[in-house]
């Protein structure tokens, strides 16, 4: 299973902010995504507006999630009808066990992988290595971070924090190639190295961007061609999908094939879309003899159970909310401490892992709403973040309240101090008196009390006006 380091969120964000390499990548690279997206959603896609597509997609995903048991059953029936196998995995360990069993029965020694975020949740690579099987990531970004021993920095651009020099160094170390600062050359090196792996692999593991229930079809949206290799060359294909990735019918695909690439990379369509309905037919020239689909829960049930958070299961993993988030754009992906980052990561990580140790994540947002505005399925991320903040503060039946006693005591006092007009007036009168010795030019630079001193460490506290507004109003708003 992927290591959960969410408890170190504050320290890790601090480190990212002080890391010039990461700051450079975030400052210079992210704009490629946001600009490309802005340009392409203006472009024509038939008669429907972008807004109408988003509304329709949100409704369609909610329809599916509300009937998820029905659609999961339909996927199962249809994939089996096509000659494939279907498994339902409760958690990461269970899913890993299933993959290892399939591998063992098929005598698999070498695995090639195309991008799959669920397999990141599972930590499948160490599990395969433990069984003496070599897993090789074949998405260029994933390959780079596999060589570097890291986790994805961004959901669709896993190695965006790596410079060409760092990639060249990695290739030099692992592949013994000459150093180069030519990106094209680096791609050729990776192509050649991975060609051998593709040709020799016994098993291909892919994710799934969508699973069409009506036909039992797994849909992959890729640009490099490694997804096609993974589903074409090895004799066994295992697709791993989060249980929420389902669309009811074939004719629901056009909508999502328009929304996903535009939101993710700013493309009208990606270079490849691969549709896999099962193992190859007996008469086919090539393709895998076995097809297995693993549908994974791994904490998604905790999202489903919560009527508000359930909306997060509509996510199609485009990454647009990361690209537009002022917090992500400062701290990057690793600080979030698990597989998913940015606003969607801050929402899904606490319930999928542990609310208590991921308690800082829902607060890693300014609630500016940029994520909601760009989300292709209109997930109201700020609302979900607020809901989670409440769960974190009050305890949620899964984990007790994550806040300490002092914070709770403070909140209680604050509530008493402001709950009626009378209380508010008398508490501000008291505060105005108490602040007098520490106010300089209308601001408080340092709060003297130990519990609240941290607040003014990096910012000034605006002092209360000498005369409250209500009083000035009564006096005809004359000067103070």
């Amino acid at each position, binding site marked *: 299973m992927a290591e959960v380091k969410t408890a170190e969120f504050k320290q890790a964000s601090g480190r990212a902010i002080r890391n010039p390499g990461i700051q450079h990548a975030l400052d210079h*690279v992210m704009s490629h995504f946001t600009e490309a997206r802005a340009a392409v959603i203006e472009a024509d896609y038939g008669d429907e507006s972008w807004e109408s597509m988003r509304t329709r997609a949100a409704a369609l995903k909610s329809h599916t999630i509300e*009937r998820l048991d029905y659609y*999961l059953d339909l996927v199962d029936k249809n994939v089996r009808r*096509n000659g494939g196998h279907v*498994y339902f995995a409760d958690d990461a360990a269970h899913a890993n066990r299933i993959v290892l069993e*399939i591998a063992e029965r098929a005598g698999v020694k070498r695995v090639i992988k195309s991008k799959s975020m669920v397999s990141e949740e599972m930590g499948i690579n160490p599990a395969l290595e433990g069984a003496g099987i070599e897993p090789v990531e074949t998405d260029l970004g994933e390959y780079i971070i596999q060589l570097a021993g890291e986790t994805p920095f961004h959901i669709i651009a896993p190695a965006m924090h790596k410079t060409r020099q760092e990639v060249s160094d990695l290739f030099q170390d692992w592949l013994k190639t000459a150093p180069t600062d030519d990106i094209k050359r680096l791609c050729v090196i990776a192509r050649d190295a991975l060609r051998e792996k593709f040709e020799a692999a016994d098993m291909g593991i892919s994710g799934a961007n969508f699973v069409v229930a009506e036909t039992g079809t797994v849909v992959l949206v890729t640009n490099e061609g490694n997804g096609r290799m993974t589903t074409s060359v090895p004799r066994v294909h295992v697709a791993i999908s989060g249980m929420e990735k389902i669309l009811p019918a074939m004719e629901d695909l056009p909508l999502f094939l328009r929304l996903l690439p535009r939101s993710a990379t700013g493309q009208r369509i990606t270079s*490849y879309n691969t549709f896999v309905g099962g193992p190859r037919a007996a008469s086919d*020239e*090539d393709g895998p003899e076995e097809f297995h689909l693993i549908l994974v829960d791994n904490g998604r049930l905790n999202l489903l159970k919560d009527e508000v958070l359930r909306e997060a299961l509509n996510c199609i993993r485009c990454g647009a909310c990361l690209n537009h988030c002022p917090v992500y754009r400062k701290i990057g992906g690793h600080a979030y401490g698990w597989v998913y980052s940015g606003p969607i990561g801050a929402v899904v990580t606490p319930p999928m892992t542990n609310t208590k140790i991921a308690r800082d994540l829902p607060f890693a947002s300014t609630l500016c709403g940029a994520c909601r505005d760009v989300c292709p399925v209109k997930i109201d991320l700020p609302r979900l973040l607020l809901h989670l903040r409440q769960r974190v503060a009050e305890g949620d039946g899964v984990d007790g309240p994550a806040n300490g006693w002092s914070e709770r005591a403070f909140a209680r006092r604050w509530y008493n101090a402001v709950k009626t007009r009378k209380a508010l007036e008398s508490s501000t009168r008291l505060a105005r008196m108490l602040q007098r010795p520490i106010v300089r030019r209308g601001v408080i630079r340092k709060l003297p009390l130990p519990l609240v001193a941290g607040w003014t460490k990096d910012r000034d506290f605006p002092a209360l006006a000498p005369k409250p507004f209500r009083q000035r109003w009564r006096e005809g708003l004359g000067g103070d």
Partner: protein
Amino acid sequence: MPTPDEHENKEAFLKRVREALGRSEPILHTPDHASLKTTPPRQEEKVRTIQAKVEARRPQLIARLAEIAGAASWNVHRVNTVEGAAATVAEIAGRANAKSIVRSAEEVFSRVDVDGALRRRGLSWTVLASGGRRRRSDLKRLAFASDLGITGVTFAIAETGSCVITPRRGVARLTSLAPATLVLIVEAEQVLESLDDFFAITRLGYQRDRGRSPSYFNFISGPSRTADIEQTLTIGVHGPGEVHMVLVGQ
């Protein structure tokens, strides 16, 4: 050959999902979702409408396909005749300086005499299909050793500049994937307007005869590309970096 725990967990898993959704009973009837419920006669009607539309608008659709594909880094070659198409394919192969050419056995080759045109240029090729003395197990090696692949398509989609490849007997998956240069021959009648058109037709195929519907197909919508290093667009990673669309007819 199901593995030991296949389905062992299905009922328990679905029950938990149902409970999380606050329901105690499974849903027994097809949910009220239009794209799931359209009956075969209705679907046929829909497809007939699409066919009439694409027939009526063919010149515009072909122009649109060429425009969108060009913008997505396809090399688009428009030709009026099958002879012109064959000559164009051979010319691309000659210019690419390909040492090893593979082609599929798509039916388009019975109309477009690519073999004759290649022969006239002194080029040789291999048909990447099993049969005769060639076994399936040879195909992978042949494909990976080749540097130019030629095949036909089942459809092209103007909206996205996509070609639909449907592997089957005579059409190996690797023909359009392994070689660094790819040439696809698209005939005018294969051009659809939108993704909606394509999926309506595909769905009808499933409804009519599921057993014979392809279990695997691909859209190819441009050269293989990546931006994984410094978000710099680079062409040609694992799939073909140079893609040609030879569009026949008008």
